[in-house]
């Protein structure tokens, strides 16, 4: 009975969403003329290569035009990590180690992880360092690095994340991000304003502060996600 009611309600919601979406033509260009940008999308597409020298327009948006959002986003992750820590907080005895997995994995997986782990770290670094050139960026790269650590946690019972290091990395990265923003405020009177030379598009060193911020974000995300995964995995009770 309740099921029926809920299905009925969801049918109305679904109908509502469908009708709304049916007014939005799939694949239509709503951005308008790029040379006379009326929408933000068109503006970003037309201005980014010239004014920012950034190949990846999404990165330009994420780190520059809407860099403030990203600062918030970084905060959300930071918050999630902190919140998780506070929700699952348990007073540890000194030197106590709670394993992330109960059972050891096979020697094969252990060997394979050892082999793949460094490669994943390089991949992650590549992704966030080239955030302004290729699809990717700080979040993606950070997430990849975190999955590298996840792989190690899965494979080894006694793999430990050094929480002190995590704290240092995430704090310093966060401080770097906010400080770059504040330097912009001091130098160019606008928070997060790009105060460095923008270079040439598709060079590694281009886009001014954008890659710097994305590297910081990469470190921060990697540290936070790894920390979160570690916290979530080491909550086992004996």
């Amino acid at each position, binding site marked *: 009975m309740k099921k029926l009611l809920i299905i009925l309600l969801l049918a109305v919601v679904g109908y*509502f*969403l469908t*009708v*709304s979406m049916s*007014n*939005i033509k799939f694949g239509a260009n*709503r*951005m*308008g003329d790029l040379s006379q940008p*009326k*929408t*933000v*999308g*068109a503006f970003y597409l037309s*201005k980014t290569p010239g004014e920012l020298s950034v190949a990846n327009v999404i990165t330009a948006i994420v780190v*520059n*035009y*809407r*860099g*403030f*959002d990203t*600062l*918030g*986003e970084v*905060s*959300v992750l*930071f*918050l*999630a990590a*902190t*919140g*998780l*820590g*506070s*929700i699952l*907080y348990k*007073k540890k005895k000194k030197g106590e180690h709670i394993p992330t997995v109960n059972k050891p994995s096979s020697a094969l997986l252990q060997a394979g992880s050892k082999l793949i782990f460094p490669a994943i770290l390089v991949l992650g670094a590549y992704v966030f360092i080239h955030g302004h050139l290729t699809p990717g960026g700080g979040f993606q790269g950070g997430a990849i690095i975190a999955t590298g650590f996840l792989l190690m946690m899965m494979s080894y019972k006694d793999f430990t994340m050094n929480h002190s290091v995590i*704290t*240092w990395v*995430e*704090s*310093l*990265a*966060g*401080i770097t*991000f*906010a*400080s770059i*923003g*504040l330097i*912009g*405020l*001091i130098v*160019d*009177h*606008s*928070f*997060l*304003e*790009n105060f460095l030379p923008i270079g040439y598009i598709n060079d590694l060193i281009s886009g001014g502060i954008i890659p710097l911020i994305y590297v910081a974000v990469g470190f921060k995300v990697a540290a936070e996600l790894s920390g979160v995964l570690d916290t979530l995995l080491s909550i086992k009770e004996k």
Partner: protein
Amino acid sequence: MVISPVHYIAVPLLAAFLMPLLAKIHRELTRIVPGLVILYLGYVSVVLMNQVMAHGTIVEVIAGWNAPWGINLVYSPFTGFLASMMTAMAFVIWLYSYRFKKVDSQPALKYFILFMMLVTGTIGIVLTGDIFNFFVFLEITAISSYSLTAFYRDRDGAEAAFKYLLIGSFASAFILIAILLLYTQVGTLNMAQIAVRMHDVPTHMKITILILFLVGLGIEAEMFPLNGWAPDAYSQAPSPVGVTFAALVVKAGVYGLIRIIFTLFDVHGAYEYLIVMGAITLVMAELAAIRQKSLKRMLAYSSIGQMGVVMIAFGIGTNEAVFGAIFLMFNHAVIKGLLFMSGSYLVYNTPNKEIQYLSGYGMKMPLISLFFSLGALAIVGLPPFAGFWSKLYILIAAADNQMIGLIALILGVSIVEIVYYFRVVGRLYFGKPSKGSIMQKPTYGGVIAMSLLAIVILVVGFYPDVITPYIHNAADALLDKAQYIHSVLPNADLSQIQNLK
């Protein structure tokens, strides 16, 4: 570096990132730094409010991209007032929670980080001029709220937090869909430009988007029947956090609701909707409040009820009504803050935080009881305390709009409010105190915090003129849509813009 609105966001964030490192230097720093940061924001508020009162709205551009291309912060007399109020309340709450979790430094660090981010999130919601950035700050607020609600493990905090999260995620989802649809229609995320282009959006689309916003922000503004999470969260969170919910978080939710209705949309009926939903919220919350056994739950429902009145007042939408509504927001922040702070001490050691155990506490905890009584007198709108003026303004506005039934409803519900508040006050001064229960001695910070709030209640009560000029400007700023758009987009075509009320 010149003082600018972005300090409200950047400085606390910087401090939050720094705090884990500071904790390694000296653990007391984790407590002191947030206070210093908020104090600095207080200074920023004073500087900027003076500037705004003299020269009008400040628009702060982020990353050097002018609106509508980048994100901007709008520090108008209205948003500035709210931000300043939130900062002030945050400082008082910080004082109140200074000794919080004295023994263990790890939880203290986490608590203060989360608290500072919660404050930042709410202020960000108010200041931002970008709809998606608004959503981001909403989520910062939400996630820190969830975590803080579950902060204590000896309570049902996790249960409350989960409900909050469940409903809060619905809110995020609806708001996100609304932003998505809005973006397809106007091709921008800047609120001022959305307001300009809203005229060209087909009506059915406009209403579709509005509905999604109303439900999503209704949840944040604790509108009935979307507010099931609220009493649980208020009552289970650590008491300073409960205060933060009442004084900051719900204010930000209401702000969002009215910003959408007043500035972004030009849909008739939204105002009446606010009135009706406000009235229902008011009635349901107050009726639930009167039957509560737990003091904190009672205060929580009462808070919801007050938000109902705020919504009604905004719904009336005349300058006087909006003035009353903003005044009530201010009063509610201060008074409910005092009630929560003193009430928490009263029920500190009682089983289940229930009112019935408070007999005779007036003798055992005279100062705290006095604070609570003062709060009770003020919140029900008895003169000569702060709550009276806002009530009077709202009622006058309603009367001027021939809404006599509405006034009768508000006043009728006020009687219910009086009953449950004075029941507690009566009990405090009634009867024999039970022997043996341990009184929680308030911290110095707590006493100072409560005293500050009490002083504000008395000063505003006796001399409302200390605050009314700011509120007048705030009301004008909220109602003047064209001015808002003009200050953000100086070249915008304002010919289609009209204030509905």
